């Protein structure tokens, strides 16, 4: 059997095992679904009134989608840190299985979780007035871009999970970095009114551009004021979003795999 088919099969087995774990601990999944619903409702109705009402809610959904899948990467962090702590990773490492399967299986099962989360958020979005106004193809492309981004973030999470010294550290480290990264973006508000350095960061932030891609493809406003985007990344949102996701994968897959090879049980 070739290395690739063995790797795919082993990853599938690990993903199956991870999904069974989630199924048997549904309260864990609750956090992953309740949080995005809460964010949609809070932003839509707490900030929405001041920020443009129905128009803001339509702008918001693309940002919430991206923010939520970014936060889902903390599931990868915690899942891997848990397996390390419990000796499951040692058991895997002593088996004659593919070296990437533990990581690829984890990011794959977390992608399945992301699909579920995105579905729930879509329904929630429709309830607060968000609509898909573009073509079906564009909408499918939007979901594909979102899931690719989710997969990329999951690999960042895998790396963080493997360098964390304990599950407790993983829990906070896996979430902490996400707050600045998701909030310094146009996920919730347009970047135009941010001070210089933050604005520059937000303009080039993959979160911003992925959210912009979704808004464009869904036919939603890219800016709350409906002005056309002026920055280069926003004007090339879809290729930039896809490119940055691929870049994140290209950087973090080798980092995580190298770390996995070295990591001993703690």
């Amino acid at each position, binding site marked *: 059997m070739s290395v690739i088919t063995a790797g795919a099969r*082993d990853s599938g087995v690990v993903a199956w095992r991870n999904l*069974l*774990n989630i199924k048997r601990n549904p309260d864990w999944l609750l956090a992953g679904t309740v949080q995005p619903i809460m964010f949609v409702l809070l932003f839509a109705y707490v900030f929405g009134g001041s920020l443009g009402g129905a128009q803001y809610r339509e702008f918001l959904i693309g940002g919430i989608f991206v923010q939520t899948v970014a936060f889902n990467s903390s599931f990868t962090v915690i899942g891997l840190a848990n397996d390390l702590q419990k000796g499951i990773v*040692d*058991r895997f*490492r002593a088996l*004659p*299985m593919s070296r990437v399967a533990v990581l690829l299986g984890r990011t794959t099962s977390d992608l399945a979780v992301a699909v579920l989360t995105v579905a729930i958020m879509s329904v929630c979005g429709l309830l607060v007035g968000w609509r898909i106004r573009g073509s079906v193809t564009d909408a499918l492309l939007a979901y594909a871009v979102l899931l690719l981004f989710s997969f990329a973030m999951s690999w960042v999470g895998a790396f963080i999970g493997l360098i964390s010294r304990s599950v407790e550290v993983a829990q906070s480290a896996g979430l902490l970095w996400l707050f600045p990264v998701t909030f310094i973006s146009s996920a919730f508000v347009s970047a135009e009114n941010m001070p210089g350095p933050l604005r520059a960061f937000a303009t080039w932030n993959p979160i911003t551009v992925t959210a912009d891609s979704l808004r464009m493809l869904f036919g939603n406003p890219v800016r709350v004021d409906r002005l056309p985007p002026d920055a280069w990344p926003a004007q090339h949102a879809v290729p930039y979003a896809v490119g940055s996701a691929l870049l994140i994968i290209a950087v973090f897959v080798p980092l995580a795999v190298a770390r996995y090879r070295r990591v*001993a049980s703690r």
Partner: protein
Amino acid sequence: MTASIAVSTEALVKTFGTNRALDGVDLEIRSGRVLGLLGPNGAGKTTTVRILTTLLRPDSGRAFVAGNDVLADPHAARHAIGLSGQYAAVDENLTGYENLYMVGRLYGMSRADASRRARQLLDRFRLQEAAERPSKGYSGGMRRRLDLAGALVAAPPVVVLDEPTTGLDPRGRMETWEVVGELVDDGTTVLLTTQYLEEADALADSIAVIDQGRVIARGTSDELKAQVGGERLELVAQEPEDLAVVTQVLDEVGSGSPHTEERARRVQVPVEVGPKALMEALRRLDAQGIEVYDVALHRPTLDDAFLSLTGRAAGRADGAAERDEVGGGHIEQGARG
């Protein structure tokens, strides 16, 4: 390397910072035998196991499992070895069946083969009734059996059991011992690490005593006990004033000089033929009208062997050197920590 050697290590060295965890460990296990790797916490047992199972690379030295060089071809070595860990690494959210099925699939078995093998092992380890329950609800002994079953999924020629009964209650320990016995009947080569001396005594064909990263003694259980000497006769006097006479009698019947503990009114002496010396001592004391409170005949235990080899009781890595006392022929019963 001859074909009949299933596991061997040559001069394994591993340091963690300034701690020399392994300081040149040589081991050899013949096919179908059980080697007990005996030592206190921190002696280097788990480090040795982690190197053999490819989880850790040594700083220097070599290791072979079923003819496969662990360092040069770890993938082949993993195929040949099954590991049952010190802390049962079963997935507690998966059922017993799912745990074993998963391991089978990861060994490269087809779905049907992995499923069949899982059922077979669940039957064999008396887990069939718990097969469909998440292992979270299993008792400690059941979990350990499931972990052991996981090590046997691919029927590897070599199985490593890293402290298989640590933390188990006596019942769980007995169950685990039975399973190890069955393994050996199947012709599997077993490396068993333990800090329980009676466990090595009961299960292993030969024993290597490891302490501070070095193998300090090796041989069969009997050979190790022989290093400590023969039986000891122990008498406890009824009255403190009888101690002198008891000591004198034991000096006469014993093969060495007696050791007296005044406060406990206890006298010990090494003897050549235990029962004969015992009867002779009691006869002489009776003739002098001296009553004896307690009497015992001690065969040397592995505890004694460990104590005389390391200067400490087993399980106590920090014990002060008691070698002088041992050298004087007075052997304290090694207490397990």
